[in-house]
Structures are given as structure tokens and as C-alpha cells.
């Protein structure tokens, strides 16, 4: 009964926050609207990673690859072809999920540590290709000025688009985690051997989780393109993947909404600390160390 009350409270709080965010553009400056949109995109990315890490204990160390694949697929299609925007947008998560499946098949055969290291390695291959293939991807510079459809081209309209997509995705992820699939995934996280003994095909279940997580990561990539209008290889670089990982840890990786909190904190810190010093990476490293020593389950945990 007590837990029912808390759940209602959490729902109430979430609803209140959502309403505030809906109204935000009317009283915030353009910079802050953009800033919030960036947080939303990052929050979705962090949530998608946590499906694997916090709820599945899969060492998904290079989740950024799928973010980048989603961004590059949709961005390139928008910039270089005349395909309608909805096709380009759909291509993002589909390409990301496909990459997730392929890389996942490779990595899933191995245990946790190997899984992570192999993923970093394979993901870096994709980064290297994007980095070098100047003709297609713009190489080091990336591509800027990607044509975004008019109805979401302005700062405010892109904000709303991102917020609504984020809301839908978060709701879907919630349903998935509360479903038998999600429950089984968490059981696998806790004790994969036991799960096998009760008849669960552990590897296959994990692979499905990866595909779902990378699908949402791809959506985040598309949203990035909508907000920024450009793509560049840093999206595929593994240091970004590390940042997302830290976001999940910071917010609370065994909780549902923790990653969103982590994303908000890290993006805010990065933006505002960045105005004072160029040594943001150092600060991030220190934050991580503090987390490891004092808050291993994150803020919400």
C-alpha cells in the first residue's frame, strides 16, 4: 500500500514536470530552450543505454555508436537525398538497431568484460570509417546545415518535437521494463545461471534487449540531428559512450529515471563549467571517482 502511494506520487511529480516543460518555452530565452532540448536528447540516450546496463548488466561500453549511426543515417539521407523526412527519420533507429544486432551477435557470445571490450573495438571501426570517408560523411568536419523539415526547424518547434518523442519513448521503456520481458531481463542481470536453469535462453533474451536499446539510441541520434542540424564523428567516438555511462551511474543505474537525472546534471555541468575552464574532462573524471567511492548506486539509488 505504501508503495502504491509512492508510485502515485512519482507519477504526479512526473506529470507536473512534464507540464512545466511544456510551458517552458514561453518564459525561457532561446538559449535555454536549446539547452533543454539538448538535455532531452541526452536523457533519451542515457535511458536507452540503461536498458542494457542497469537493467540487464550488459557491459555496453560503446553505446554511442548506435547514437551516431542513427544520427548519420538520418542526417545523410536528409542532406544528400530527396527522400521524405519521415523516411530519413525512420532510417535512423532502424539502422541503429541493425548495427546493434550485428555487433550484438558478435559480442554476446562472450562474457561481460570481453563483451564490452569487443564492442569498443567494433564500434571504433565504424568511427574510423566515418572519420576517413570524407566523400560520404564529411570526415573529420562532419556535415553541417542539414535540411530539417520546416515544422520542426525553429528552436521552439524542435524543442516540442524532442520533448514529445522523449515522452513517448520514456513511456514505452517504462512499459517494457514492467513487462515479462523486462522482468526476465532484470532476473538475468541478477543471476543468468539461474535463469538458464528455469528455461530462459539467456543469450537470445540479452540480444533482444540490445536491439531494443540500440533502437532507442538511434531515435536519440535522429533527435540530435533535429536539434543541431549537423553530424560529426565525435558522436561515434567512445569517449562520448563513456560519458553516457557515467550519466547512468550518476543518476542511479538501478532506478528507472536515474539516467535522465544523470544526463541533466552532466549536460548542465558541461555547459556551465565549460565557460570557466577547458578542462571539463578532468572534472568529469573527478566526478566519476567521487561516484565510485561514495555513491556507487547513484543519486537516486
Amino acid at each position, binding site marked *: 500500500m505504501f508503495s502504491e502511494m509512492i508510485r502515485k506520487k512519482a507519477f504526479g511529480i512526473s506529470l507536473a514536470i512534464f507540464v512545466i516543460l511544456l510551458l517552458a518555452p514561453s518564459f525561457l530565452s532561446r538559449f535555454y530552450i536549446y539547452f533543454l532540448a539538448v538535455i532531452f536528447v541526452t536523457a533519451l540516450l542515457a535511458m536507452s543505454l540503461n536498458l542494457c546496463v542497469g537493467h540487464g548488466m550488459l557491459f555496453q561500453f560503446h553505446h554511442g555508436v548506435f547514437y551516431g549511426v542513427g544520427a548519420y543515417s538520418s542526417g545523410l539521407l536528409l542532406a544528400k537525398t530527396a527522400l521524405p523526412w519521415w523516411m530519413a527519420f525512420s532510417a535512423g533507429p532502424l539502422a541503429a538497431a541493425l548495427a546493434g544486432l550485428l555487433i550484438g551477435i558478435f559480442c554476446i557470445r562472450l562474457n561481460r*568484460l570481453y563483451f564490452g571490450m569487443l564492442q569498443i573495438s567494433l564500434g571504433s571501426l565504424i568511427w574510423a570509417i566515418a572519420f*576517413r570517408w570524407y566523400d560520404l560523411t564529411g570526415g573529420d568536419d562532419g556535415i553541417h546545415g542539414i535540411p530539417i523539415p520546416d515544422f520542426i526547424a525553429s528552436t521552439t518547434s524542435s524543442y516540442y518535437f524532442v520533448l514529445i518523442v522523449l515522452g513517448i519513448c520514456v513511456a514505452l521503456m517504462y512499459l517494457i521494463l514492467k513487462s515479462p520481458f523486462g522482468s526476465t531481463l532484470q532476473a538475468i542481470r541478477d543471476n543468468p545461471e539461474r535463469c538458464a536453469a528455469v528455461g530462459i535462453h539467456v543469450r537470445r533474451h540479452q540480444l533482444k534487449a540490445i536491439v531494443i536499446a540500440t533502437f532507442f539510441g538511434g531515435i536519440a541520434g535522429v533527435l540530435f540531428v533535429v536539434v543541431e542540424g549537423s553530424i560529426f564523428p565525435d558522436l561515434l567516438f567512445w569517449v562520448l559512450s563513456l560519458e553516457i555511462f*557515467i550519466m547512468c551511474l550518476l543518476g542511479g543505474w538501478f532506478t528507472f529515471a536515474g539516467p535522465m537525472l544523470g544526463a541533466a546534471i552532466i549536460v548542465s555541468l558541461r555547459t556551465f563549467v565549460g565557460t570557466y575552464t577547458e578542462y571539463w574532462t578532468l572534472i568529469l*573524471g573527478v566526478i566519476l571517482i567521487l561516484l565510485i567511492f561514495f555513491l556507487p548506486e547513484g543519486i537516486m539509488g
Partner: protein
Amino acid sequence: MEGGQEITIAALSSTFLVGLSRAMILFVVTAGLSFVLGVLRVPNVAHGSLYMIGAFAAYSISTFFGGGSIGFWLALVFAPLVVALVSLIAERSLFCHLYQREHLMLLLFTFALMLILGDLTKIVWGAEYRSVMAPAFLQGSISVFGSPFPRYNLFLLVIGPLVAIGLWLFSTKTKMGKIARAAAVDMEMVGAIGINVSWVFAFAFVLGCLLAGLGGALVSPTISVTIGMDHNIIIEAFLIVTIGGLGNMWGALVGSLIFGITQAFGVLLLPQFAIVFPYLAVVIVLTLKPTGMLKSVW
């Protein structure tokens, strides 16, 4: 053909030797990573940062001593020691307190260390490109199979096997080495027979990092020493230990050879996408042997 040179026997053999020399540096670096991986069961993500610090330290030491031959040899000796000291400080002050925690925390610590060391390097040495001069008799090239081959690479071809033999002697003939090998197989037993496990870890970590620093010092005359070296090398090192077999030092050698040689041939055949060649080799190896070519320590 999009290649940079004509494909002659001379070019092929020269390429092979270049790949081999590059593999020697990769081996020195990845042997250290493998060693830490074998004993501590944690891939040290900061390994690349220590390699980078080794290169920068080599620059500082050699410049301090005038930049000539003496400077180089002193740098080769002392830069790894500087790196070892840095790693010892990190280990004794912070890392050792985490040994009881689960492995993910150890791994994340090395992530944090990488982030911190990366920026610390930028603070201390700045973002410009640095370079180190090799001693005079190692500069220039000689003719091998009709192609010019850098003398410094010959030096690497000698150093590599020396390091390999040294490591082999150490791990099989010395007491510390045997303890480290035993610890890699069964840490609990080692503790149970009265050996201080924490010091074994510390020793393994520092030795691994020293090798990274040595790799950095060795590579410094051949490339521009700059920020970002850490990111590039750590990816390669991870790939190499993965295809070699986690924790297996000879696996690191095999992996380095595969990586270095395929990369050299990539430069010869398709320079723009040279990096794809070793990656493809990795994919092929892992498709056929998912746990690496040689037996992993665990």
C-alpha cells in the same frame, strides 16, 4: 590502383618490415595491458594515457639534456620510471581501496584515471605537437631489399624481442614473476599462502604501466607527440589483447604482429582507409576464434 607506391617485391618487404617494427611498439604496450588484465582482471583504460605520458616525459627529459643522443637514452630509461611513479601514486592512493569491490568499479576507476590524466597532460605540456630526436646513429635510413628503411625501425626490431625475452625470463624465472602468474590463475590461493595480495596487484599494475611508458618513449621519435595519442593507442591495444587472448602476453605478441603488419599493408594498398585493414583482420580472427588466438588466462 589507389596505392601510394608501386607494388614491387621491394615495397612488399619494406612494408612487412615497417609493420613488424610497428608491431614491436604495439607489443611493448599491449604486453603491459595484458599483464594487468591477467593479474587484476581489469582492462586498464588509462593504459593509453600512461603511454602518452611516457612519450611526453621522453620529450621533456631529452630536451632537458640537450636533445641529443644522451638525452634520448636517458629519456628511454627515465620516462618509463616517471610513468611507473605516476601509476604507483594513483594505485596506492585510490585504486587499492577498490580491490574488494566488483570489477565494474575497478574498470570505471581506470576510465576516470584516463579522463584525469588526459587533461593533466594537457595542463602540464600544453596542446602543441612535440617531437623527440633519435640519436644520430639511429637517424636516417638504410637500404633494405632496395627500399629505404628507417634505422630507428631496426632498433625497434631489436628492442622488441629483447623486451619479450626479458618479460619471459621475469615471469618464469623470478619469484615475483611466478607469484604474478599464480595470482593470475587463482588470486585467493595466493592470498591463502600468505602473500600480500594487495602488493601483488600494485606490482602488476605498476609494471604494466611502466611498459606503457616504455612504449611511449620508444615511439616518441617516430611520431608527433600530442594530446589524443591516448585515445588512439588504447583502441588498438584493446583490439590486440582481444584477438590475442585476454591476459596472455604471447597473445599480445601475436595480436600486435597481426595488427601491425595488416596496418602497414593497408597503408600500402589503400592509404585513405589503411585503418580498416587491421580492423577487418580483427573481425576475421574473432569470427573464427571468439576468445582470441591464444588461450586466455581466464
